[in-house]
């Protein structure tokens, strides 16, 4: 039998190769698990059950033609990557009915490898948020405690992997949107070096920060998935040829590895339980032969303000395309085109997206550009230089991924600034374009704590090797129980699925087959 709570992709592939399980059986195990728990977790916006069942059967039948390292393995995809013939909503009412006519390069590469897509996972609307509470359709719950958030914005992907509703998943990370939910849900998540994975077909939030990456149950799986989505893409001019192939990690020792602990990351706001688990992991690194030293990234406290100009500024430009003309929702009965734009956007976007469009538009408006956007891009240079200097002394930087464990649903929803602070340890790697990975390093009050490694540009293999050795030594095997305060009460997971037209039938069907 397939234990979807524990099975890794590496183990699943062995079961397939040994003929102990078929792709159809493997896929059905995940679809059964989704059917059993999805009404409590709300990890998916859309489950493509029929397509997954059909395609996995095809992979089994045409095994000779459809083989490869990933063939027949099921995956979940964050719903901000466009998928031809499968609705892609970005968890926004403005895209509730959008049916892409092409497929994101990262997803296309997996489809070409005969990966089976289980469905599209929930997120904060347009990936703007740190809790998945900003979804226009439902609030995803953390499988470790259904009364808490899974983190965000890739909260659906992280919760799906943690709850055994997916073998692994793709997410996207603009300021921590893969790593923070991975930390809060007790799974592995990685943001690659900027440019390593094509952004073509990733609905753009902040183009200079966005990267697609894996959410998995092990570091080995993370490397396995990453190596199949990297590569230069003519359709993304910022994509690059990786200087070296992604290797599957095997390190068990860390002899000679120099790890820097930035004192600014530990200065304030780290919960005692998170700090304790982090310090135990640091001690383990030393036992494995690594050398941990305190380092300084002096501009850390300016990274968050710079990010909250750069990301909204780019978002305000990127989201200008949602105007009711070419796709998505359009406000009814507007007499002129400008009124149509304004009402379409006013009715179609949720509160956090509106806030960021407003901040970004303000920061780019006449008279303010240099004071905000110009200044933020200069601060960004200082943040990058901090890392350049530190990587002259150490091989990797380590920190907690998130200052806290999962917080209760609703606890920070009313205070945008309190929510933004969730990403204080993850944002600098996006500003500097660096690879960063989170692995679970234990529990605090029964909730997972994430440990983050950040490396120099294109040091993915070093990051993965170190994380693999630490993961092995940590031996984190706990799994969530899907319990918690709200378990018995499970209603709709918060916000009701709704469409801007008020016609529920036209909204994406939640947790149903396509």
């Amino acid at each position: 039998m397939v234990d979807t709570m524990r099975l890794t992709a590496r183990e699943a592939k062995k079961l397939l190769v040994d003929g102990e399980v078929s792709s159809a059986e493997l896929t059905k195990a995940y679809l059964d698990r989704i059917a059993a728990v999805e009404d409590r977790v709300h990890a998916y916006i859309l489950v493509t059950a029929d397509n997954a069942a059909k395609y996995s059967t095809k992979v089994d039948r045409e095994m000779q033609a459809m083989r490869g390292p990933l063939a027949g393995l099921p995956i979940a995809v964050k719903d901000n990557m466009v998928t031809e013939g499968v609705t892609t909503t970005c968890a926004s009412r403005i895209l509730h009915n959008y049916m892409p006519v092409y497929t994101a390069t990262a997803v296309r590469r997996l489809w070409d490898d005969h990966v089976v897509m289980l469905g599209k996972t929930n997120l904060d609307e347009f990936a703007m948020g740190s809790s998945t509470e900003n979804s226009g359709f439902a609030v995803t719950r953390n499988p470790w405690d259904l009364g808490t958030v899974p983190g965000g914005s890739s909260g659906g992907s992280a919760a799906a992997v943690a709850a055994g509703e997916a073998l692994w998943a793709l997410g996207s990370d603009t300021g921590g949107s893969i790593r923070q939910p991975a930390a809060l849900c007790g799974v592995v998540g990685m943001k690659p070096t900027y440019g390593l994975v094509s952004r073509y077909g990733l609905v753009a939030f902040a183009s200079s920060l966005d990267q697609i990456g894996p959410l998995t149950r092990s570091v080995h799986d993370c490397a396995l998935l990453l190596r199949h989505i990297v590569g230069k893409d003519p359709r993304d001019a910022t994509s690059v040829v990786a200087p070296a192939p992604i290797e599957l990690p095997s390190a068990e020792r860390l002899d000679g590895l120099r790890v820097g602990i930035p004192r600014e990351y530990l200065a304030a706001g780290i919960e005692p339980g998170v700090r304790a688990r982090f310090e135990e992991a640091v001690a383990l690194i030393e036992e494995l032969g690594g050398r941990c030293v305190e380092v300084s990234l002096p501009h850390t406290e300016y990274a968050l303000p710079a990010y909250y100009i750069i990301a909204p500024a780019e978002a305000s430009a990127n989201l200008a395309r949602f105007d009711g003309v070419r796709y998505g929702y359009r406000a009814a009965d507007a007499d002129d085109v400008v009124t149509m734009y304004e009402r379409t956007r006013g009715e179609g976007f949720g509160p956090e997206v509106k806030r960021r469009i407003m901040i970004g538009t303000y920061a780019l408006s006449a008279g303010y550009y240099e004071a905000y956007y110009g200044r933020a891009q200069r601060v960004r240079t200082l943040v990058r230089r901090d890392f350049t200097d530190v990587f002259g002394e150490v091989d990797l930087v380590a920190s907690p991924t998130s200052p806290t464990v999962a917080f209760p649903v609703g606890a920070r929803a009313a205070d945008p600034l309190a929510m933004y602070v969730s990403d204080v340890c993850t944002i600098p790697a996006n500003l500097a374009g660096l690879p960063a990975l989170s692995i679970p390093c234990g529990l605090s009050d029964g909730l997972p704590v994430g440990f983050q490694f950040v490396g120099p540009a294109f040091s993915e293999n070093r990051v993965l090797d170190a994380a693999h050795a630490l993961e092995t030594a940590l031996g984190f095997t706990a799994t969530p129980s899907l319990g918690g305060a709200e378990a018995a009460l499970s209603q709709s997971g918060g916000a009701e699925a709704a469409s801007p037209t008020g016609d529920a039938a036209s909204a994406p069907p939640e947790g149903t087959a396509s």
Partner: protein
Amino acid sequence: MIGEDDVRHVARLARLHLEQDEVGRMTGELARILAHIDKMSELDISAVPPTAHVLDVVGVTRSDRVEPGLSREEALRNAPAVVDDCFRVPKMG
């Protein structure tokens, strides 16, 4: 300090309709967020160049060759309103 008139002006620039209660709430929220962002002005950045790109990538070009793109039918498939193979919108104001 950002006020309600600024918020209405920026909303017009962004082509974003805000209800009156949203304008009030947004004004308070933006003021708090911008106050946090103003922390950046503690730094002397006069000699620091802005980041244009995080990697040393310059002059990315490709050959100027026609590649297959979306058909008209595909490009129009998601449009809320279509007339004569074109996107249909309300009249200009």
